[in-house]
């Protein structure tokens, strides 16, 4: 029997879009910003930008040491570190070396099974086929496999002057990305859109660039084509690669290229921002000052005319979230932000503003000699915020687990995420039952990514996607000023959907000042 239910659905859905557009909340939300307040997710990375900033800012003429010195220094050090095992222990103890030499056959079997049993694999190899990283297992066991990957990629480039993008096997996908001098391969059992596949691979590429800086990598490979780049990756840095993929699966901000803010009353946030900006004002070479709390943005101040791209922000968030070693100390970390300038790097002063290490201050400068200066700023900011009780306010905001869905009062509503396109920021409600397990969380986000992929499919220019699946219904709406994703129970009627969406948009309009960073602080 042909299902007649569809006819009833159609009658409601046909008017859905016109009803959505006539909602009072919709009109108010179209943002018009002349200069993006914080983020510019359209900006093209400029190679050499950091160099340029540096050269223009230093009063004294920079006496540039001849690059040869650096070159020879590097080669000296390479001659000395005799074998790889000495400098890249996987675990803290040296017994790891012994373990690896034993039972190679068994290990290989183990690895073959590993390849078959996991849902998502990530592999990184160098252009000449050398293993660099694998999400599961030990990449040394996968030398042959990586060699195959390299051949597959280069054959297409050489024999066909074409790029190998991805292959499909039923719903499964294997995607390839060649970004000199690496090749990235993503294997997934889920029906991911090619856009999302590329996004994930690009984030991983950016993560590795962020850690090592592109120009440095290229220089090294030019000098030594067979260099094993793993020697440059410590276990903490490999953790960053693991975590960037995990983050992508658990976070919509990376998908939508927008930052997530801690919900704070606007005046509090303003005070925090002004405190930071005033402290730093006028300091040469400082570009960004960011305060993070549990991966959410509290405040950001910047030098006029320089923008941070949201995906660069996520690299910083990943760095902070992944590194426990930053807690309780002041760290001075060279960090490259690929969307800003893949060829240069910032130096980041990273420290916490509170004893329980919830609130992190990241100061970014292009001058590697300025640790002391930034360290002093940190002290000043720390004191000022403490005196004004602002640090406490931040922690209170953290504790306040805003459910958001409660505030919308719709029984079929399970989750929503709203992105302000003009601000490149988004907010989302807290994940409740049944999405409290990791499995459900990942599954839901896969579904959202599917809908996102449909919505943003190039050339299709869709405005609305409404999916009714087995366990939930999803509405995705792309409007000029915003993008909205809402998850309902599978039984929600279209009336509920429309009503609920209206409530969400009204809520956001009302609470806007707390949910987003609207104005930017400059120093």
């Amino acid at each position: 029997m042909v299902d007649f239910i569809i006819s009833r659905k159609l009658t409601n859905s046909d008017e859905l879009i016109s009803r959505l557009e006539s909602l009072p909340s919709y009109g108010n939300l179209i943002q018009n910003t002349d200069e993006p307040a914080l983020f510019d997710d359209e900006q093209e990375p400029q190679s050499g930008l950091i160099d340029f900033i540096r050269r223009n800012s230093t009063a004294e003429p920079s006496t540039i040491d001849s690059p040869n010195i650096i070159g020879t220094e590097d080669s000296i050090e390479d001659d000395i570190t005799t074998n790889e095992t000495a400098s890249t222990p996987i675990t803290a103890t040296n017994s790891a070396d012994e373990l690896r030499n034993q039972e190679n056959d068994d290990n290989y079997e183990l690895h073959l099974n590993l390849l078959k049993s996991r849902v998502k694999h990530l592999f990184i190899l160098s252009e000449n086929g050398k293993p660099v990283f694998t999400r599961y297992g030990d990449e040394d066991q996968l030398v042959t496999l990586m060699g195959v990957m390299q051949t597959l990629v280069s054959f297409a480039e050489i024999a066909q002057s074409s790029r190998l993008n991805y292959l499909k096997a039923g719903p499964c996908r294997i995607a390839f990305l060649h970004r000199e001098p690496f090749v990235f391969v993503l294997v997934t059992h889920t029906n991911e859109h090619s856009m999302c596949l590329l996004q994930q691979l690009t984030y991983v590429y950016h993560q590795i660039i962020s850690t090592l800086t592109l120009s440095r990598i290229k220089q090294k490979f030019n000098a030594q084509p067979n260099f094993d780049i793993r020697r440059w990756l410590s276990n903490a840095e490999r953790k960053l690669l693991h975590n960037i993929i995990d983050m992508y699966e658990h976070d919509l901000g990376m998908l939508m290229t927008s930052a997530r803010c801690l919900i704070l009353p606007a005046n509090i946030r303003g005070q925090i921002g002004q405190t930071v900006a005033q402290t730093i004002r006028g300091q040469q070479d400082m570009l960004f000052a960011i305060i993070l709390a549990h991966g959410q943005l509290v405040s950001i101040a910047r030098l006029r005319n320089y923008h941070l791209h949201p995906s660069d922000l996520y690299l910083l968030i990943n760095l902070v979230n992944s590194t426990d070693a930053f807690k309780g100390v002041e760290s001075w970390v060279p960090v490259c932000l690929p969307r800003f300038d893949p060829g240069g790097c910032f130096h980041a002063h990273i420290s916490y503003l509170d004893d329980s290490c919830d609130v992190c201050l990241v100061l970014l400068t292009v001058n590697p000699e300025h640790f002391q200066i930034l360290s002093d700023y940190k002290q000043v900011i720390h004191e000022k915020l403490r005196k004004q009780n602002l640090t406490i306010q931040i922690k209170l905001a953290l504790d306040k687990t805003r459910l958001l869905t409660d505030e919308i009062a719709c029984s079929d509503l399970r989750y929503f995420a709203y992105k302000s396109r003009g601000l490149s920021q988004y907010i989302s409600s807290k994940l409740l039952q049944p999405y409290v397990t990791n499995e459900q969380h990942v599954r839901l986000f896969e579904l959202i990514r599917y809908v996102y992929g449909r919505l943003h499919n190039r050339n299709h220019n869709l405005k609305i996607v409404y999916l009714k699946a087995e366990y939930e219904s999803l509405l995705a709406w792309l409007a000029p000023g915003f993008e909205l994703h809402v998850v309902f129970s599978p039984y929600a009627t279209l009336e509920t959907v429309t009503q609920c969406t209206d409530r969400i948009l009204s809520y956001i309009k009302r609470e806007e000042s707390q949910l987003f960073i609207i104005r930017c602080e400059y120093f």
Partner: protein
Amino acid sequence: MTSNNRQSATGQAARTCQFKMVLLGESAVGKSSLVLRFVKGQFHEYQESTIGAAFLTQTVSVDDITVKLELWDTAGQERYHSLAPMYYRGAQAAIVVYDITNADTFSRAKVWVKELQRQAAPNIVIALAGNKADLTAKRQVEVADAQSYAEENGLIFMETSAKTSMNVNDIFMAIAKKLPKTQDTSNANGGRGRSNDGQSITVSRSSTQRVPGNEGGCCGGK
């Protein structure tokens, strides 16, 4: 560890000295563990690699003098090598760490010592720490060899174990003791000052000289 108390038992204002100390050594030898043990009394079996460098301070009391140590725990990864001068420049002390269960790290340590002797402050106090001394079964570097090397080069030498805390305080104290406290290096304003890394000991090179680290930090330059 005594606190930075400006009044000693005799009621006289105690002197405060401040020194910059850097830890160098190959990746995974235990630099961070040593610092963590010294400053916080903690030890983590699977301590993560250091990213960049970590800065901490610890104050000790040496003969009625309060000595504040500004510790730079550097990442041992070879790609950070070109940044090292930024940390040991103007440092009054350095600990070069190696892992007694790994002979390669000892060779590397010697290279560090040589570099310090050539490029760091001429009267920098250098200590050699043979860490992971608790792993006696896996020893690859003999005490005698390290001892004689240290003597030849005028280094303080101790085998340490961040895990058991053996000799950890001792080595830092030994350095603190050896540091020249003839000059009162604390600034009048009591803060850390804004001058370059707070050093006041004469350095043979001009302080404006750019070292590789300045040109691009981790970047190879263009």
